């Protein structure tokens, strides 16, 4: 993975202005970079500032202090906001809040119409985007008859049609059932393999386990950073931060306590199965000899 930063967040502080006297501070001097092609997860409890920081990544919010640079463009440059958003697209929590048209393909084309893409190219991009999320068969359907997972795929297609380098998902799976979630995770995995940069804000630790790198937020600051395996090793610290580890990690820890040979650093379901196989074969050989 190349270490070229496509988004640079520098010393960002942010407050929600309530009225003239009162402001609620949410972010305090946050700095990090999003590297081209990486899969970054941002976790933290409700109110830790993770959604607020994600809304800074394409200029929906601009910092009270500090700067966010997208491909060298400062998000404060309102005149270049379309350029920023065509590079960094965002999918939100509620599918219904981001679907605007009455037919799926019109919805996907909506952003393209706004930036004046020629009809021939528009069709090509809509075809590509619907294909990428596996929704081509639904292009003439009204979106309100789709399931939550299908609506989120349409929302992602609308972003893909803009050909961004980076997809930011702000709890995009939290309102979906487990099948809907798997649909979205499948699409995201595929996009990431094809080189798309992914930033995901989520409470689902099994989703976090798939990322390359994790940022943990608390009180508007980044308090931990590392690979999922490194971060999930700190089970107690995460619990203090109102977070959790995947069930696979909890199971690995518990089994490790009874059988020290069983690795405690597992984070995926399939790793548990492999570890059982590894040890089961060993004990079978030992008892057989």
């Amino acid at each position: 993975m190349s270490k070229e930063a496509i988004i640079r967040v520098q010393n960002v502080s942010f407050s929600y202005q309530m009225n003239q006297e009162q402001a609620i501070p949410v972010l305090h001097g946050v700095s990090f970079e999003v590297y081209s092609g990486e899969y970054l997860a941002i976790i933290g409890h409700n109110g830790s500032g993770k959604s607020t920081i994600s809304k800074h990544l394409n200029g929906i919010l601009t910092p009270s202090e500090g700067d966010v640079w997208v491909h060298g463009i400062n998000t404060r440059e309102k005149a270049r906001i379309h350029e920023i958003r065509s590079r960094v697209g965002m999918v939100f929590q509620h599918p219904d809040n981001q679907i605007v048209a009455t037919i799926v393909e019109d919805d996907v084309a909506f952003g393209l119409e706004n930036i004046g893409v020629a009809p021939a190219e528009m069709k090509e991009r809509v075809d590509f985007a619907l294909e990428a999320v596996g929704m081509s068969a639904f292009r003439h359907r009204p979106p309100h008859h789709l399931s939550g997972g299908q609506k989120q795929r349409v929302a992602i297609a609308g972003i893909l049609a803009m050909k961004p380098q980076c997809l930011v998902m702000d709890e995009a799976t939290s309102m979906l059932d487990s099948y809907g979630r798997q649909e979205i995770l499948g699409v995201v995995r595929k996009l990431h393999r094809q080189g798309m940069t992914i930033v995901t804000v989520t409470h689902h630790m099994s989703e976090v386990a798939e990322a390359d790198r994790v940022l943990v937020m608390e009180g508007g600051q980044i308090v931990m950073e590392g690979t999922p395996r490194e971060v999930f090793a700190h089970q107690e610290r995460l619990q203090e931060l109102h977070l959790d580890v995947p069930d696979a990690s909890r199971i690995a820890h518990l089994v490790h306590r009874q059988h020290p040979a069983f690795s405690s650093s597992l984070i995926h379901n399939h790793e548990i199965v492999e570890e059982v196989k590894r040890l089961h074969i060993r004990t079978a050989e030992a008892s057989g000899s």
Partner: protein
Amino acid sequence: MKQPILVTEHLSHVYMQGTPMEHRALDDVSIQIDRGECIAIIGHTGSGKSTLIQHFNGLMRPQSGSVIINGMNVSDPKLDVKALRRQVGLVFQNPEDQIFEKLVGDDVAYGPFKMGLPIEEVRRRVEWAMELVGLSFEEMKDRPTFALSGGQKRKVALAGVLSLQPKILVLDEPTAGLDPRSRNELLERIKRLNTEERLTVIFVSHNMEEVAHLADRVYVMANGRAVCEGTPRSIFSNQELLHTHHIGTPESVDILYRLRAEGYQVDPGAYSVDEAADQIAHLIGR
């Protein structure tokens, strides 16, 4: 001993009847929920869960079949809907759908205030309801609702419903979008409302960990029908049922099924992390 508090018989509902868009959302649903039970309703998107629970506080009236709640017939055209809604509190999936006052305290007070209760009683109930969901009355009552986090909004919506002191609490995806700690905290509070305040709790969920942890009994909905009913253990150990009706499993159950597919002797009905870990420890211990 068992005292039915909510009974549906042959309940059916067809959306847009007589049009090409006709859709049978509920099809001959008969369920019985007893006083003090904690019931989960699960099923794939579009299985009819939301349509079903909207009958529980009179948002929808039966097209055919019946719904009887604590002696009140929801089909009765002269039904006192306000009285029904004091008995049955419904908390929507998206808390923003039911928060409309500027300040937290005012929002929680809205229901009891409209009931015409004396102001002291309103205040007492607001304080009680807020503390019950884990919102400090003194600290939070004057907070603007728009500046709350997702988890706080959900607690405010729940407090607003509890301030009416309902007998039955109906929750649509109570913990969607909450962080793990807030989720566990809210689940514990719901459990306490159920066991200590003797509230009958009915919740719709696609989080199977939550179903496993909370529910006494589970109804599985599919294509508008209640296709199966049982304890969480019996539901999760029925892989065919889960598979047929597109129902996810808790992560720990997924691990156990994967082990079983590899030929290991495990019981996938053991859905808690502790039980699953014990089974795995037992496997390699032999």
